[in-house]
């Protein structure tokens, strides 16, 4: 540590900010606390996908499927759908395990694929899961099809429910605020896990297969297992995030798990900086909050300027989103906060190393 005091003060400031943030946001509107919660869910997803894409270098376009698997596992085990109401601390690990299993199921047939081919297969996998969820209402009704599952239990410990408002320590604590603290705790844990994985024997093995699979094998790395491990770990985080999404929403349907969501999460990873945990966090924050800020500013701004709505916020969102991606790819191809290694990779490729390597 070069500046121990500066670092410590910074950490304390960030911690205090994060601790009082939901109450400050609640002053503006409870909607903003919810938006923050969804942003944290997206960060969790982006961090999970970063293991697969950023660490191991396996392009996955169907990542949202694992989110769906986690969400539906939670919904089926804690809702009137089957009359099951298991506690969350049992379901979340089950959801994570089921998602990890699907991660391996997806990973196994794609082991020999790379780049574009892998992307297409994973894209197909994502769609398959969504379509299955959409159609698993007949002949036996499991998922309730496109109508989705409602009345999903919130996180609850005894009488303490995270969904209902409550007065604690003289403060009005709403449901979203409670979930915020839970999500924050999970996020900190996930970031810690990611940092530790990255600087470990497993993390190095992921880097090795990303850089050169043949050399990795010659170095004694069982590339099959290490790749499956990447898929399983990424899926696990997706599954946990999905379970929490289910509980927070209390209603889920296949519509929440469309391809655009996978693309969104991948964009967060790419925009922020593949392989760099803090970059990925930044990317997820930007892509979660900027659209919401637009939603709240575009309409009044146009009304003030032109006296009527010329362009819908949604249109502007996609326009800016596309523009942002193009600009980042042009000026910061390794992302806003690139990892040092990834940046080297991308510049080296610019000098034609990719062609040499593919021979």
């Amino acid at each position, binding site marked *: 540590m070069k500046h121990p005091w500066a670092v410590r003060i910074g950490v304390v400031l960030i911690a205090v900010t994060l601790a009082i943030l939901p109450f400050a946001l609640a002053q503006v509107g409870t909607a903003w606390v919810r938006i923050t919660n969804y942003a944290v869910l997206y960060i969790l997803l982006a961090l999970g996908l970063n293991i697969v894409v950023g660490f191991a270098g396996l392009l996955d376009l169907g990542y949202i499927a694992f989110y769906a698997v986690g969400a539906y596992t939670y919904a089926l085990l804690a809702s009137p759908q089957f009359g099951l109401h298991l506690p969350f601390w049992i379901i979340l690990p089950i959801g994570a395990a089921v998602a990890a299993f699907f991660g391996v199921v997806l990973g196994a047939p794609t082991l020999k694929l790379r780049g574009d081919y892998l992307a297409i297969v994973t894209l197909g996998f994502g769609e398959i899961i969504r379509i299955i969820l959409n159609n698993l209402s007949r002949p036996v009704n499991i998922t309730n099809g496109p109508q989705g599952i409602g009345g999903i239990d919130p996180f609850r410990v005894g009488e303490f429910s995270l969904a209902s408002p409550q007065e604690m320590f003289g403060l009005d604590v709403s449901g979203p605020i409670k979930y915020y603290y839970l999500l924050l705790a999970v996020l900190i844990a996930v970031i810690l896990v990611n940092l530790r994985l990255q600087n470990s*024997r497993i993390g190095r093995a992921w880097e090795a297969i990303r850089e050169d699979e043949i050399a990795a*094998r010659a*170095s004694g790395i069982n590339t099959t297992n290490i790749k499956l491990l990447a898929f399983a770990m990424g899926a696990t985080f997706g599954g946990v995030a999905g379970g929490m999404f289910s509980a927070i929403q209390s209603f889920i349907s296949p519509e929440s798990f469309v391809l655009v969501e996978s693309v969104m999460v991948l964009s967060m990873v790419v925009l922020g900086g593949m392989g760099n945990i803090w970059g990925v966090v930044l990317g997820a924050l930007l892509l979660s909050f900027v659209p919401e800020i637009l939603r709240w500013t575009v309409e009044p701004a146009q009304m003030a300027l032109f006296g009527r709505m010329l362009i819908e916020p949604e249109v502007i969102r996609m326009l800016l989103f596309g523009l942002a991606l193009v600009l980042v790819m042009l000026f910061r191809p390794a992302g806003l906060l690139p990892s040092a290694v990834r940046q080297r990779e991308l510049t080296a490729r610019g000098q034609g*190393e990719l062609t040499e390597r593919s021979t």
Partner: protein
Amino acid sequence: MNLLEGRGIGKRFGGVQALSDVSFSIAEGEVFGLIGPNGAGKTTLFNVLTGIYPPDKGGFAFNGRALDGLKAHQVAVAGIARTFQNIRLFANLSSIENVMIGRHARTRAGVWGAILRTRRTLEEEDGIERRALELLDFVGIRARANAPAGSLPYGDQRRLEIARALAIEPKLLALDEPAAGMNATERVALGKLIQAIRASGVTVLLIEHDVRLVMNVCDRVLVLDYGEKIAEGRPAEVQSDARVIEAYLGRPRAA
């Protein structure tokens, strides 16, 4: 005792018989040279040995155990490490990380160890780093430990690849044209490094075009031409073998 024994190795790619019925054996502690003109099948033999392709016929026995059907990483774990003719480093990672990756097969920490940072994991990590530095020191590039591997000069990249291969603790180190692209001084230094590797108890299999290097460091040599073994023996014997001369220089006109 023979460390490696190849029996009747054959490999065909479409219409090309890359290797036919090649048999040889390498004794423990030897530096064994594999030479032959371009396209003779040397690298194919390497790739079959290290599990990149399966042989069509024949097979290898290593340290008394058949290597049949083993995958590349299993061959490495069994104790055969290799380098590549067209250097295959993890070019964007630092030199020391490259060597640390080589320790993968000899260490154990898994996901839980990494996440919980148990004392065993931390000790193992220390050991990996210490060994990696020792190996960088051994091949003479410790000063470049934190430089990206791809930024090293060519000769140092070859040395780094050797360090990474040694990190597996191989019994047999297979070097595919390690002197390619090196200048005369670097070649002399490489010869010394190979001698030092042998002195440390590692048997060396060496593909090389540089005749002087082969003559200096190899105990025995196997000569391949068009996928067939045409000679085997001490470098001096092989050098005067009529078939070897013919393979390299062509048939005398007078005949």
